[in-house]
């Protein structure tokens, strides 16, 4: 069944590529095997075939089959169909191999390997690949967030979307309508940046905080990405590292707290043998109190008092 369908679709591609004229559905039916005799069944099957060919990216054109009748016909322009001339050097083919394994999610991994096969198919020179050393570095990209697929499509096709979003530290979900400009991966996490219609301003959303389905809210091509919009910069700004504008003084056991010893300023603490006095800069007091608490009895905060209190609160919390 599936084999006959593949055979039929392949025949249509070969037929329409070889023809300069638009061929009607009836002419196609006469030339390829496998269509049923019954008219309605044929129509349905032909519609499905056309859709499948277009989904594969085959540029199926429609036009009037002849000037004497109004029947629609089909053809595939060779120029639109064929991959332009391309020659890959062996080292480029080695790079292509690494690049086609970067995506870990099924959909884009399939797209990347599909592209690599087309490029290899067109280029005989790529066969010298085994003589080239591939790059020693191998990146991997994962897309575990369910929102990724629809957002990737929305960005590709320039369509607005709506979704529910749970902001960090909030418990209620808000509905957002976004004109997406791009997706960005940072620190291994995916973000979408674009124009938030309700806020009438650029916004960035972390994909893992999008709950429920992402729905399209407009036709393809209806999003205009403003000139000069730089999604990388938007995400960097949104998620920028905090400046370390606080300083703590700690007493740390000399044989523990490796990270504190390495990244802080260490002095011997004459009054407390076996302990060091360390001054170290930090950014977020709440985060840092938690971090210091994780050292347990190996660290005592001397100052500032707020940090000392926060660590004590944190440790009391762990008692219950």
């Amino acid at each position, binding site marked *: 069944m599936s*084999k006959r*369908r*593949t*055979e039929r*679709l*392949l*025949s249509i*591609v*070969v*037929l329409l590529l070889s023809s300069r004229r638009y061929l009607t559905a009836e002419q196609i039916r*006469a030339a*390829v095997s496998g269509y049923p005799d019954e008219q309605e069944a044929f129509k349905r099957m032909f519609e499905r075939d056309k859709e*499948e060919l277009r*989904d*594969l990216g085959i540029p199926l054109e429609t036009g009037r089959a002849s000037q004497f009748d109004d029947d629609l016909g089909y053809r595939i322009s060779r120029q*639109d*169909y*064929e*991959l332009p001339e*391309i020659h890959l050097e062996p*080292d*480029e083919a080695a*790079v292509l191999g*690494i*690049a*086609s394994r970067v995506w*870990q999610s099924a959909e884009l*991994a399939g*797209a990347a390997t599909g592209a690599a096969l*087309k*490029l290899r*198919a*067109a280029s005989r020179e790529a066969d010298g690949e085994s003589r080239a*050393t591939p*790059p*020693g*570095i191998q*990146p*991997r990209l*994962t897309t575990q967030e369910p929102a990724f697929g629809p957002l990737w499509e929305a960005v590709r096709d320039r369509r607005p979307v709506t979704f529910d979003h749970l902001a960090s530290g909030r*418990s209620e979900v808000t509905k957002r309508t976004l004109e997406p400009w*791009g*997706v*960005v991966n940072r*620190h*291994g*996490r995916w973000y979408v940046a674009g124009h938030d219609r309700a806020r009438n301003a650029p916004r960035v959303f972390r994909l*893992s905080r999008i709950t429920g389905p992402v729905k399209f809210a407009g036709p393809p091509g209806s999003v205009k990405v403003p000139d000069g919009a730089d*999604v990388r910069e938007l995400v960097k700004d949104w998620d920028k590292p905090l400046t370390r504008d606080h300083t703590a003084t700690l007493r740390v056991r000399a044989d523990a707290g*490796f990270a504190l010893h*390495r990244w802080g300023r260490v002095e011997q603490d004459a009054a407390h043998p076996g302990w060091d006095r360390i001054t170290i800069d930090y950014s977020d007091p709440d985060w840092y109190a938690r971090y210091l*608490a*994780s050292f347990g*009895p190996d660290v005592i905060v001397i100052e500032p008092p707020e940090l000392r209190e926060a660590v004590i*609160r*944190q*440790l*009391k919390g*762990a*008692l219950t």
Partner: protein
Amino acid sequence: MVTSAERLRRLLALVPYVATRRVVGLAETAATFGMSERELIDDLNLVWCVELRAPEPYCPIDLSYEDGEISISQAESIARPLRLAADEASALLVALRMLAEAASFGRPSDSNHGDPNHGDPNRGDPNHGDSDHGDSDAVARLIAKIEAAAGAAGAASSQAAILIERPNAGGMAATLSGALAAGRRVHLRYYVPSRDEATERDVDPMRLLVVEGRTYLEGWCRRAEGVRTFRLDRVVSVDVLDMPAEVPEDAEPSDVDGGLFTASPSDLLAEIELAPAARWFAESTPCESVTELPDGRLRIGLRTPDTTWLRRLALRLGEDARVVAPAELADEVRATAAAALAQYE
């Protein structure tokens, strides 16, 4: 089972692949297309059977396979591959740009900004420098060629960006990529945050990986006698040893495609209850199980060989987390917190 569309996509690349080469090995072709020789022969038979009945009956594709070789004498209108689709061009270009950025970390020139103690082992050896630049040039050349071939289909790729953390300020990546290229063993001083200590080990480098935005060295750890991955931002120092790397032949690269950190079933299973404020933890750490509880709380199951890490984690989460099991771990957390508090009295 591949769908008819997937199979058609494959055939439309397979015919040009053979046509471009005229004669090509069966085994080699099957390997390139990631299928068995049996499946390949099925595909070839299907293509060979294609027949157009009108206006004149004819078989547009003429091919044969024998003695392990395939040849095509006529491929008609499908002798060239189909253009890249938007998803294909974008997926590949985004991956290549990420590779270009990652490879730039390994460029010897970057090590000049680094810690002088982690000097570039290849300085003065022009061959290695050249090979590194060769890689990055190949990436840049390939990007340019694909952009040209893809045309408008590649446009969407500029709307997806991958930002990679620069591993350490220094030339760590350059040093390690040099050691990798030269096939040398390295000595690492490696910080293990879960135990808050630095460990010393000799490692035979296998490859550099970028996973979830971070750069790792994968290598044969001589201390653990196994393949290990090391996060570059936790490497305290690296020395390239005057000794060849000896990666055992049976050393299997870790299966990063299934996630870098896979817990072993023999590891300790801990159960922890998280308050809403600590839900982020379940998002950022691979958990064995995650169960929703009333009021936005979560119960997670974590497998780890390392109870020190769990104890530090529980102290860090404080009142937002409660160790449910094992009971000994819960006791240990309370005892550690009490000992720490006693020092403030």
